[in-house]
């Protein structure tokens, strides 16, 4: 491949330029550090890990970004919540008649218990199929209380398109998966031996303010986001 060698030349030349510039900067750097005493080392941020009140905080944060939060006390209440959401959609332009679910077995088990009239139910439809679905249902891998954020790790569940393309996304979350802060969620992601190929943080439904800064919900991603939390 001749382009390979061309590109090696470009790589070498960029690295050479970086090193030459950094070398040339050395004498200015010395003057600079005398002029401006290096700023004192920043104090470390106190990480407050708390477990009480996380659910309430999560619900409040999620609702602040236009997401819906439903708290279920047992499996029957989750099924009821799923049924309720989809039935209420079936009267609207969001239809709710074609349902795409992730490959998490829990999701399939729950949706099969719901008493619904639906046209189609598919597990992780492909990129070419996914556009016709009205609702996507998945689990999530963690949530952040302070921002109302869901963490989706696509190596543990195939929910990348299911959570994104249909106009409605319903996420099922265990209360024990809620962490307090963004920092804790990042640490969770980082702790696995090899970082997952695709991880996504989701905070509320898709939004834009590109036209006269007027908020519009549901541009390219879901227009509605429901999170069902169970103990």
């Amino acid at each position, binding site marked *: 491949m001749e382009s390979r060698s061309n590109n090696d030349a470009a790589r070498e030349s*960029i690295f050479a330029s970086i090193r030459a510039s950094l070398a040339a900067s050395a004498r200015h750097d010395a003057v600079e550090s005398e002029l401006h005493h290096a700023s004192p080392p920043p104090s470390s941020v106190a990480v407050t890990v708390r477990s009480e009140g996380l659910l309430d905080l999560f619900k409040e944060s999620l609702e602040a970004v236009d997401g819906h939060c439903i708290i279920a006390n047992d499996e029957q209440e989750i099924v009821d919540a799923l049924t309720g959401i989809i039935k209420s959609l079936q009267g609207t332009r969001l239809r709710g008649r074609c349902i795409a679910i992730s490959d998490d077995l829990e999701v399939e088990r729950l949706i099969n218990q719901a008493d619904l009239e639906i046209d189609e139910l598919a597990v992780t439809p492909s990129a070419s199929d996914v556009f016709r679905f009205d609702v996507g249902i998945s689990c999530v891998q963690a949530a952040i209380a302070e921002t109302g954020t869901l963490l989706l790790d696509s190596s543990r569940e195939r929910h990348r398109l299911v959570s994104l393309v249909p106009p409605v996304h319903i996420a099922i979350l265990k209360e024990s998966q809620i962490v307090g802060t963004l920092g804790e969620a990042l640490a969770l992601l980082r702790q696995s031996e090899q970082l997952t190929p695709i991880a996504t943080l989701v905070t509320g439904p898709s939004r834009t303010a590109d036209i006269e800064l007027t908020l519009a919900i*549901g541009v390219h991603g879901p227009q509605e986001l429901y999170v069902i939390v169970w103990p």
Partner: protein
Amino acid sequence: MNHVTSETFDKNAKAALADSQLRGALRNATSLFGQRRLAATQQLTNWEDLRTRARTIKDEVLSQLDKYLEQFVANAEARGAKFHWARDAQEANTIILKLVKDRNARTIVKSKSMTTEETHLNVALEGAGVQVVETDLGEYIIQLAQETPSHIIVPAIHKTKHQIAELFTEELGMPPTDDVDKLTSTAREKLRDRFAAADIGISGVNFGIAETGTILILENEGNIRLTTSLPRVHIAVMGIEKLVPRFADLDIFLKLLPRSGTGQRLTTYQSFITGTKIDKDSEGPEELHVVMLDNGRSRMLAHPVTRQSLACIRCGACLNACPVYQNIGGHAYGSVYPGPIGAVITPQLMGLEKTQQLPYASSLCGACREVCPVKIDIPRLLLHLRSEITEKASPEVAQAKPKAGERLAFKLWKVAMMKPWLYKLSTKLARLFQGFLVKNGKIGAATGPARLAQPLVAWTSGRDLRPIEQESFRELWKKELAGK
């Protein structure tokens, strides 16, 4: 406003000032973003600390950029990413065009990327007959109107919804409406077909993480998630400076960037992409190509003052805070990077010859420095570039050299400022002789013999000057206050 260049900044700015619709839109947008940013920063008790830490991290990366680049590339390559190196914009476009042609790609979807605006990628692709669709709502509007973005975060900030409605009626055949939700859903429907058909997705990159080889992209709309998940091939274009060393550093930058940009605690979506899919059934791109762009960046490393330009995380806060940007908007800067950060980055990327008016597009008020989440000292950079223009003037920029009269005036001023008796004498003399310049209590456009005084002419051609008061503060003090 489509063909303005940085060379004619002064003219562009005057034209923008005369556009009352533009100024109204800018006033709304910049003040709203300013308020939201302030409210969002006040939610955190350690905002200043976060800024300092972020800057320390960026300095750490930039002072050893070669080392961190090697680490980033090695880790991403180990996970299946392919790297391509571009010394300049043209080389980047050639690389991308080859990737496109080799795959016989017909439709390309693109998410917002300032870096590809910098390289004018769309022009290059369209010139080669490849169709490329911008999918960010603002960028889509701009592309339909065949214009360029005027704000880093809100590309179509200069257009009213009426103008957008007219554009959609004309280009997309939708019935006329002023309803923002309807306009948005029309764009959604139109773009869904494109997403479904796309062979390749092209995105920018907000952060590259050296220790894991991850790229992170932030957004609100979901088009970046679609662009990076639907097509088989993902091409990510990033400047070589976009690195942070550790995954944990993102905790700081993800607190700073959304709050500074839009006043959000977090943008709706953060996509962390590490290499390609593990096997055929797992999620992730089949092919991930990362194009690393230099285009003048490595040169900026050569001095600590210019190097800090590379710490920029493209939040747009300095645009909203800048009294110059607030009045003229982004197009007048004649470059993809407008506002205070544009006034320092554009001359360094494109050379001072064609951009010498930009470092003067500031009153040095320091508002940009106050809001910058990574504490870039933009006023100092502006002064650094100004001194480069005047002191190291090459023949091309010789016209920017101060005129003899101006230099003489500053010399005299310096002497007077250093000797109190001379200062007193000269203000007394000025008070005596200013009489013939003062009309209606102010000094207007210089006429007659006064036109010989260059600095005076330069000042009064655009604004009035207040005459020197008949009594100085010291004189008043002596006469009235000290006596009592």
